[in-house]
Each structure stands twice: as structure tokens, then as C-alpha cells.
């Protein structure tokens, strides 16, 4: 026969072991511990399913975060796509302007513009045949320099021939 006291001590002994194990496990999962440590949580059965709930919540949070990042990435890629199109359009316009510029600077373009402006070709260029130059390239250019040669040098030059400067140079 089992007495009440023995049953009580057995209950106390069992409860103590279970409580100790639960405490040890709950200290390893502090978040879960706060949820499951109370008596109310124990009554609700959260002690058993707490981890599953927490994992599910975490998983959902991760999925939501992934979806948010994915949506943001998609939006950014749309923006990039738009900018890419805009860039291509600007490049196309730039190429078009470059082609117009090149066309305007060709001989045909210049001739067309000149014709539109009423300009006409002048007479064809003429060449003259080769002939000796009629210019004396040795002649001094500009007004004569003031005569500053001493009189005796000019007299000497008149006697020996040549210019006064020649005589001076020869003297050196």
C-alpha cells in the first residue's frame, strides 16, 4: 500500500527533476524561456510547441525580408532598365547629331550650303609660268638709315671702291 506521504515525496521528486531539466533547457533558449517559463505558458502548452512557433515566426520573418529585398531589387532593376533606355536614347541622339555635323562639314555639305547662300565659284585658279623675279631681294627695305660713318671712312671708301661699311668690315 502506498501512503500519501510517499506519493507526495515521489511527486515532489519528479516535479523537481522535470523543473530542473526545463530550466536548464530554457536557459539555452532565453527567448523561449520568457514565453514558456510562466505557469500560464505551461498551462497553454507553449512549453511543448514554443520552439516550433518561434522557428515558424523566424522563418516567416526571413521570407518577408527576402520578399522585401526582392521587391526592392526588382524596383531598382526597373529603374536601371529605364536609365539604360534613357542612356541608349541619348547616345542615339548624340550619334544623330554627330552624323549631321559630319555631313555638314563634308565638301558636299559645304557646297550645298554655299549654293543655298547664293555663293558661286570664282574663276579657276591660274598659274603663271616660271620666270626670274623682277625684284632685287638684296635691296634694303624701308627708309635709308642716317649716315653716321666718319667722313674719313667715306673718303677712303670713295678712293678704294665699295661702301664705307665694306671697308670697315675689311679692316677687321
Amino acid at each position, binding site marked *: 500500500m502506498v501512503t500519501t506521504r510517499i506519493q507526495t515525496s515521489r511527486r515532489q521528486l519528479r516535479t523537481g527533476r522535470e523543473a530542473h531539466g526545463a530550466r536548464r533547457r530554457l536557459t539555452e533558449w532565453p527567448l523561449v524561456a520568457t514565453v514558456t517559463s510562466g505557469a500560464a505558458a505551461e498551462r497553454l502548452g507553449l512549453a511543448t510547441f514554443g520552439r516550433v512557433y518561434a522557428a515558424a515566426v523566424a522563418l516567416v520573418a526571413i521570407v518577408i525580408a527576402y520578399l522585401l529585398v526582392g521587391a526592392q531589387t526588382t524596383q*531598382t532593376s526597373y529603374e536601371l532598365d529605364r536609365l539604360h533606355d534613357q542612356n*541608349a536614347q541619348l547616345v542615339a541622339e548624340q*550619334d*544623330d547629331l554627330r552624323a549631321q555635323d559630319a555631313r555638314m562639314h563634308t*565638301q*558636299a555639305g559645304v557646297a550645298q550650303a554655299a549654293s543655298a547662300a547664293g555663293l558661286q565659284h570664282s574663276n*579657276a585658279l591660274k598659274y603663271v609660268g616660271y620666270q626670274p623675279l623682277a625684284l632685287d631681294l638684296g635691296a634694303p627695305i624701308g627708309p635709308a638709315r642716317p649716315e653716321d660713318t666718319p667722313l674719313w671712312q667715306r673718303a677712303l671708301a670713295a678712293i678704294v671702291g665699295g661702301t664705307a661699311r665694306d671697308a670697315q668690315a675689311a679692316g677687321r
Partner: protein
Amino acid sequence: MAVTSRPLGAARPWSAPKRGAARGDTTRLRVLWLLAIALMLAGSVWGRLFYWQVVEHTSLSERAAAYHLAQITLPAVRGEIHDRDGNPLAINTTVYDVTVAPRVIAAGDRARVADGLSGVLDLPRQQVMDTLRSGKEFAYVSRRQPQSVADRLHAMALPGIGLDPRPQRVYQPGGSSDVTLASSLLGFVDDGGRGQYGVEQRYNPRLAGRSGSLTTYRDSLGREIRLGNQRRENAVDGADLTLTIDSDVQYAAEQALADGVRGAHAQSGSVIVMDSKTGAIVAWADYPAYDANHFGAADQGRLKDGMVADIYEPGSVMKVVTLAGALDQGKILPTTTIVDPGYVDVGGVRLRDWDERSHGTVTMTNVLESSLNVGAVRAEQMEGQDAFLHYLDAFGIGRGSGIDVSGETVSKLRTSWRPSELATAAFGQGVAVNVVQMAAAVNVIANQGRWVQPHVVARVGATPAPPPASRQVVSAQTAQTMTRMMESVVQHGSGYLARVQGFELNEAGKTGTSQMIENRQYSPDHVWASYVGFLPADNPRFTMLVVVRQPDNGSSDHNEGYYVSAPIWKRIAEQIIQDWRITPTAPAA
């Protein structure tokens, strides 16, 4: 205190009583049936899953990939083509194919869209309306519209209208209103992006580059989603080409040739100008040519480049080659005299001078001045067959010029020659060349006896083209002597209409007129009229050959090279002199 115990089971009233063996089997059978049904159901589900996941995996993956993944071609930008001074000859722009999605356009909007499109694209309104009512998902309205049209359509913001950009090659306007500059040399790029004819075809692999690709996700509207896992291979753009062409000279050549051909009522004509020392092609003009910007509308016969694709008999221009060979062999001198009765019999065939008259005793210089066939035949006979054929080959007659343009046609020299054939070859009949070959042959005289390979490409990208091949054909002394004889042609002979003021005493040239072959016979009326020359003679800057096909000026005399081609040569030479600042030099004392 003793603790007693007894078995609990026997005393429990709810414990199952012992059943018979038959009832136990029925229960087990039911369980087995249920298990079998469950297994069958599960098996069918798992089997179906296996079918979709394993058996159909590849095809389903492909379908999914086709729906979500898109492989986008990243087109390479085609290299541009520039002239020697960097002026663009062929550049790229963007044109647009105008598309429409009739299903997207509401019935109430059709009239507005049709009005807008027909107004901007200059299309019949009813035609556009028919397209809009077709109920198709997609249709082209117009192709290759310029940027200005695209801008107007963009501003109108019509529903269901798309603009699909495409690259477009643009060429510069040429010497006459209906052609683009150097079209026969450049060729064009077809709608598929492939170079056709000329430089565009020859250098297509370098110009085209290599397309890349991008594999990426796309949404239901076809927009790119950059979610990683992209596979990207970048495109390699094509290299730019820098040609040796001078745009200004090219333009002048096209103008002068067009005027000359039209003035002579000729069928066609060609002009080639090359740098005497390097063989670089400065101008390359054909008339008639075509508009490379609208190649689809061009006459197909004009697309090929007559300069290299057609061969002709050069006529008396060949006398330069004949006499140079004889001079180099020491068989003749400029003062060597012969008696010219106006004809010569060779191998039973009587060959005559162009005027069929006796010229009495003439020097070899006179032979060149007056372009006497009898004198050329005599020079060939003095030179001997082997030496004559050797010089033909050395001057490049019978072998390709090697020019870097696609489609060169070469007529090989025959292997066995009758004496009469050798004799006619001495004055340029019975041998066929293309224009480039002939220009390069005469350029030997301008380049101190050295043949240099004609070429049109100076640089590919930043890499200079390899130096052109060259070979010594005749001695520099022979070339100098031949130059004096060719100067005499301009001063005293048939080249007088090519005299350029200021360079009358420093210009070398030679006329040529050859009968065309029609129905395997020489035509009495139709000729090739040509003129070749270089300037200044004492230090040549350029060598130019003008060939006009089948001029029709009313008389045979006025269809000859001196009358038809020499003035064209002169006009172009005057332009080059101005552009290149070539100044006359004092004649040697």
C-alpha cells in the same frame, strides 16, 4: 507493512476479451486493404510527382526558363571608317522600326493613332487603320525611321506604339547628288549587319567585332529583373578603320569623273589616285556609283566595284611598260630610231598605227609621244619574248595587285603566245587588267622603278597596317629616262590636254585608247579611253589613272583617251595641287 500486489489486467473490466481466430483475420484483412488503398493512393501521387519532377524535369525546366529567362544579345558597335585626316566616311547612328500592338489599342483610340502615325510616317491613313483593325498582337508599321521621326512619335505618346532601335550605317554625300562618297570602295552594311562589297566586306570581321550575350530574368512585360544569376558575356566592339583616302580629293575626283562621263556620253568611268611613293590610294571613284545609305534601291549592277571587278584592255598606256622593259634591257634608247610605214606584219597579221599613216623615221620618244603601235611592236621584238613577258609579270600584269579590297578580278597571262599576240600585247590589246593593276604598273616609273602594292587601309584601330609589299622592277635610271619620255608626251604629244598650268614642263603622262571586245570581236566603235600620269615629274606626289568606258562623242577621234580622259585627269590634278600645296619648281637649267 507489506505491500501486496496482483495482476491488474485480469481485474480490469475494459480489457479486451479473447476473440476467435476468424474475427481476427477479418480485421487484419481490412487493415491490409486499407493499407493497400492508402499505398495505391500514395503511389499514384508519388508516381505523378515522379513523372513531373523527374521524367518531365528537363522539358519543364526549359519551358520555365523560356518564360522567365531571356537571353539578350548585346550587340557590338561596328567600327567606323575614317579618311587619312580623320574625317568620317562611315559612321553609326540609330534608326527605329515603328511597331504596333493592335490588340492593345482600344477601338476608340484607333482613329487618333491612325491619324498620328499616318501624319508622321507619311503613310496612307487607311493602311494604318487596316493594321490597327487586324487584331494581331504585333505588326510593323514602318522600318528604319530616323531619330527625328522617333522623337515626334515619342512626344505624341500614342498607345500601343513601340519604337525598336536598330543600328544604321551612315555614309557621307558624294560628288554627285545621287551617290555617297567612295561608295564603290566602301561597300555597305546590309540589314543583317554584314558588310557587303568593298572595304566593308573585306574588313567585316574586324569592323563587326563580336556580339555578347546576357541571360537574365524578365517579368511578364519583358522588363529585365536583376536578381543575380545573370550570365553576361560582354560584347567586343569592332575596330575603327583609317583609310588612305583623302576626302577632298575623292570628292573632286567624283565630281570631275561624273561631269566627264556625262559630257562624253560614256557608259561609265573610273579614277584612281595613288601616292606615288607609298602606293596608298588617295581617291577611288567610279561613275555611276550608288547611294550606300539606300543600297536597297540601287541598281544591282552598280553595287560591284568596277575598279577591281572589271577587267579591260589598257591600250596604249601599256606602251609605258613595253618601252620601259626594252630600255631596262638596253635594247633601245629614247633616241633609237625606226622606220614606221604605218603598219607592221607580224605572224601573218598586219598591225597598224591608230591613224593608219606612215610616220617615216621616228625615235622611240616620238613613238611614245604619238602613241605609234608600230614602234611599240618593234621595241617588243628588240626586247625579245622572254624579257617582254618577264617585264609584264614584274609590272604586275597578269597577277593580282593584292589590294585590300574584296572582289578583285585578275586575268592571268596566257601560257603560250603567238607572235601576233605578243605584238598586240605591246600596245595593250590582247591583255586584260583591272584599273588598280594598271595604275600600280605605271606607278613603277613614278617610284624610281619600284613596284609598290596599292592599299587603302592605313590603320586598323590603333595598329598601323603592315608596310606594303614592293619590288624593284626596272632600274631607277630606266625609270628616270622613261619619265623624260612621258614628259615629252605632255609637252609635245598626245597628252597636251592634260597640261596643268605651272607644271607644263614637269608633268608626265600617257594616253590610251583600246577597242572593246563585243561578241568575241573588237568593236570598231566602242573603246576604252584612258589617261595615266604623275606629277610633279621630277618628284612625283601622285599617280592618277582615268579610264572611261565607251564614250560617244560623235566621232572616233573625240572618243580617244587624249580627248575624253586627259581633261578629267587635269581637273582632278589641279584640285590636288591646291589641296596639297604642290608648288611648281624651276625647270632644270
